[in-house]
C-alpha cells in the first residue's frame, strides 16, 4: 500500500531528430495517487500509457522527472527492488513450472522458508479460487484460469503497488466482463494501490476510481469517471469517453452571443457556457451532443425554428432491441442519436431531434478545449496536473 507520485516524468527513446523516435513518448507526466487508489491509464494505442506503466515498473528508465513510491524516488532502483508486482497482457506464466511454482517463484528467489511459501501461495490461491489448479502446468489451463494465476503471482508478493498492463484483452468478451468485476472486487479486498492500463474506455469507466486519459504522450485529463463523462476538458476526451461517441457540430455564434446556429440546427448556450461566449472572440464554435441526450420530437411542421433542435435525413437505422441507433445527416456532419425503440423511424425520413440545453458541450473551434466548464458538483479526488 503506497502513494505513488510521478513528477514531470518524461520518456524519450532518443531517436535521431526528425525520426519518429525523436519526439517524447511520454511528456511531463504528473500524477499523485491516493493510498490504495485504483488508477486507470487509458488512450488509443501509442499514447504512452504502457510506457508510463513500464517506467513505474522500472522495465524502462524515465528520461526525466521523478517517480516516487511511498516517498522514495525509485528512478534508479531496479524493478525487483521497487516492491511492485505486474500482470501482463500475455499472462507471462513460466511454461515449464506448475501453477504453484509459478506463484512461488518470487518467494523462492527471496529464499523464503518453505512453509511460508506454501502458506502464502495457498492463501492467494484461495482468494482467486484456483486451489484445485495448483499442480497443473499453464498449458493445461484456460485463458481465464491463466489470468487468475497471473494475478495470483502478483498477490503472493504482497507488493506496495499492482501494475496491470491490459490484463483482460486476451480474454473473450463474456469472460472479460466477469474478470473485470473480479479485479475490482480483489482491489477492494486487498486495498493495494493499482495502476491499470487499457485502451478500452468501457473498462476504464467501470473499473477506475480515477482515470488518466492520454494522447500522444500527454495527459489530456485526470478525473473520476463521472467527471470525464460530464465535463470533458477537450474534444478528444469528449469523443473518447462514452459509446457511441459524442457528436460534434460546427456552429456560428450569433450576434447575441447566445444562439449557436447551423443551416439545419439551432442551439442556445446557457449558464456558464453562455457567459464564456461573451469573452470568446471567435465567431465559430464546436457544439458537442451525446447520442443518449438526443430526443425524438414529433414533427409539428415548424420544429426547426425552436431552440436546441436539429433537423436532418435519416441515413442509417440500427435497432438494438432496447434502443434504436439512428444516424442523421445534419449539415455536413453525421449525427448519431440513441432513441427509444418504440419510436418508429424509417430510412430517408426527415426527423427533428432535440437536446436539453444543459447537456450541450462547447469547444473552442481552434484549440478544441472545452468552453465554460461548470465547477464540478463534488471535488474530484486529489487534483493533479
Amino acid at each position, binding site marked *: 500500500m503506497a502513494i505513488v507520485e510521478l513528477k514531470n516524468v518524461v520518456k524519450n527513446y532518443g531517436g535521431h531528430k526528425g525520426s519518429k523516435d525523436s519526439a517524447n513518448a511520454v511528456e511531463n507526466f504528473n500524477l499523485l495517487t491516493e493510498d490504495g487508489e485504483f488508477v486507470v491509464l487509458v488512450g488509443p494505442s501509442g499514447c504512452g500509457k504502457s510506457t508510463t506503466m513500464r517506467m513505474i*515498473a522500472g*522495465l524502462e528508465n524515465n528520461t526525466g522527472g521523478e517517480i516516487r513510491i511511498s516517498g522514495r524516488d525509485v528512478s534508479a532502483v*531496479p*524493478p*525487483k527492488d521497487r516492491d*511492485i*508486482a*505486474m500482470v*501482463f*497482457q*500475455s499472462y*507471462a506464466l*513460466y*511454461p*515449464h513450472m506448475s501453477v504453484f511454482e509459478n506463484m512461488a*517463484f*518470487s518467494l523462492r*528467489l*527471496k529464499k523464503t522458508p518453505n512453509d511460508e511459501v506454501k502458506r502464502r501461495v495457498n492463501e492467494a490461491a484461495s482468494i482467486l479460487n484456483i486451489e484445485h489448479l495448483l499442480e497443473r502446468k499453464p498449458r493445461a489451463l484456460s485463458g481465464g484460469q491463466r489470468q487468475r494465476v497471473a494475478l495470483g*503471482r502478483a498477490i503472493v*508478493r504482497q507488493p506496495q503497488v499492482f501494475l496491470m498492463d491490459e490484463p483482460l484483452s486476451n480474454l473473450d468478451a463474456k469472460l472479460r466482463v466477469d474478470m473485470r468485476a473480479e479485479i475490482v472486487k480483489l482491489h477492494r479486498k486487498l486495498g493495494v494501490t493499482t495502476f491499470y492500463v487499457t485502451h478500452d474506455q468501457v473498462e476504464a469507466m467501470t473499473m477506475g476510481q480515477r482515470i488518466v486519459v492520454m494522447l500522444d504522450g500527454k495527459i489530456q485529463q485526470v478525473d473520476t469517471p463521472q467527471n470525464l463523462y460530464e465535463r470533458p476538458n477537450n474534444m478528444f476526451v469528449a469523443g473518447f469517453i462514452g459509446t457511441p461517441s459524442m457528436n460534434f457540430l460546427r456552429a456560428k455564434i450569433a450576434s447575441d452571443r447566445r444562439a449557436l446556429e447551423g443551416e439545419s440546427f439551432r442551439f442556445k448556450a446557457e449558464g456558464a457556457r453562455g457567459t464564456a461566449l461573451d469573452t470568446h472572440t471567435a465567431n465559430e464554435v464546436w457544439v458537442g451532443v451525446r447520442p443518449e441526450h438526443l430526443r425524438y420530437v414529433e414533427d409539428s411542421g415548424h420544429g426547426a425554428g425552436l431552440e436546441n433542435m436539429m433537423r436532418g435525413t435519416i441515413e442509417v437505422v440500427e435497432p438494438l432491441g432496447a434502443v434504436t441507433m439512428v444516424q442523421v445527416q445534419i449539415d455536413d456532419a453525421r449525427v448519431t442519436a440513441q432513441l427509444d425503440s418504440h419510436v418508429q423511424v424509417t430510412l430517408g425520413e426527415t426527423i427533428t431531434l432535440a437536446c436539453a440545453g444543459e447537456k450541450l458541450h462547447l469547444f473552442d473551434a481552434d484549440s478544441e478545449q472545452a468552453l465554460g466548464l461548470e465547477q464540478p458538483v463534488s471535488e474530484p479526488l486529489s487534483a493533479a496536473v
Partner: protein
Amino acid sequence: MSTTAPISRASMWPRIVLYAVLIVFAALFLMPLYVMLTTSFKTLAEIQQGNMLALPEQWTLTPWLEAWGSACIGLDCDGISGYFFNSIKIVIPAVVISALFGAFNGYVLTKWRFRGHKIVFGLILFGCFIPFQIILLPMARVLGVLHIANTTTGLVLVHIVYGIGFTTLFFRNYYETFPNELIRAAMLDGAGFFTIFFRILLPASGPIIVVTVIWQFTNVWNDFLFGVSFTSGENAPVTVALNNLVNSSTGVKAYNVNMAAAMFAAVPTLVVYVLAGKYFVRGLMSGSVKG
C-alpha cells in the same frame, strides 16, 4: 454423390506411382547399409566367392570382435576401441560446451540487446561460413602455443570454436520468438541475469537443445579433417582410425573387419538420430512457426 464412394481407379494411379518411386529410392539408400551389415557377418572365404548381396551362409561375429579389439591400425593391433573412446572424449565436452555457449549468446543477443548486437551476430554467423581449410594452419599454431597439440583436448577446443557459430544461430532464432514478457515477469519476480537464463530460458529450450545436440554431435563425430590434421597415432578420433585401418591391411583385404569397424564408427550418430530424430524436425520447425 456419396462421400463413401470408392476411390476411382484413375485417381489411385498417381498414389501408386508415388509409393513405387519412394520405395525404390528407400531401397537405393538402404543398400549400402545392407551390404555393410551382411559383409560384416560373413567369413572372408565367403566374401571372396563374390556374391555381395547374398545373406551370410554362415553367420560369424569374429569380424566384429576383431575390429573392436585386435585389428591392426598402423603398428598397433588393438582394434578401434581406443579410438572410439577418443571420439567419445571429444564429442561430449565439445557438444555440451558449444551448446551452452550458443544458448548464452542467443540469450544475450535477443534479451539483453546492446548497441551493435546485429553486427556481432552477423560476425558470429560469418564464422559458420569460413571454410575448414583456411583455419588449419593458424589453428595448428594456436594448439601448439597452448600446448594441446595432438591431444583430444585440442580437438575439443577446435570443435567448440567452430561450433559456436551454428549453435548461436540456432539459439538466437529460437529465443527471438521467446516472449519478452516472460523475461520481464522474471525480472520483476527478482530474478537476475543468470537466474533468468538458467531457470526460465534453458528449461524452455528443449526442442532447440535437441536440434543443436544432433547437429553438433554428428558434425564432431564425423569430422575427419581436423582429426587427421591435429592428431596422430593413438590420439586420433575413430574416423581417422577407420581410415588407417582400411589402409594398413597388408596382403588380403579383410572386408568383413573393415565393414564391422565402419559400423562401429557409424552407430553413435545413428543412435542419436533414432532417439531424437522426431524432436529434430519439431525443433527445426519451432524456430519459424510461433508456438
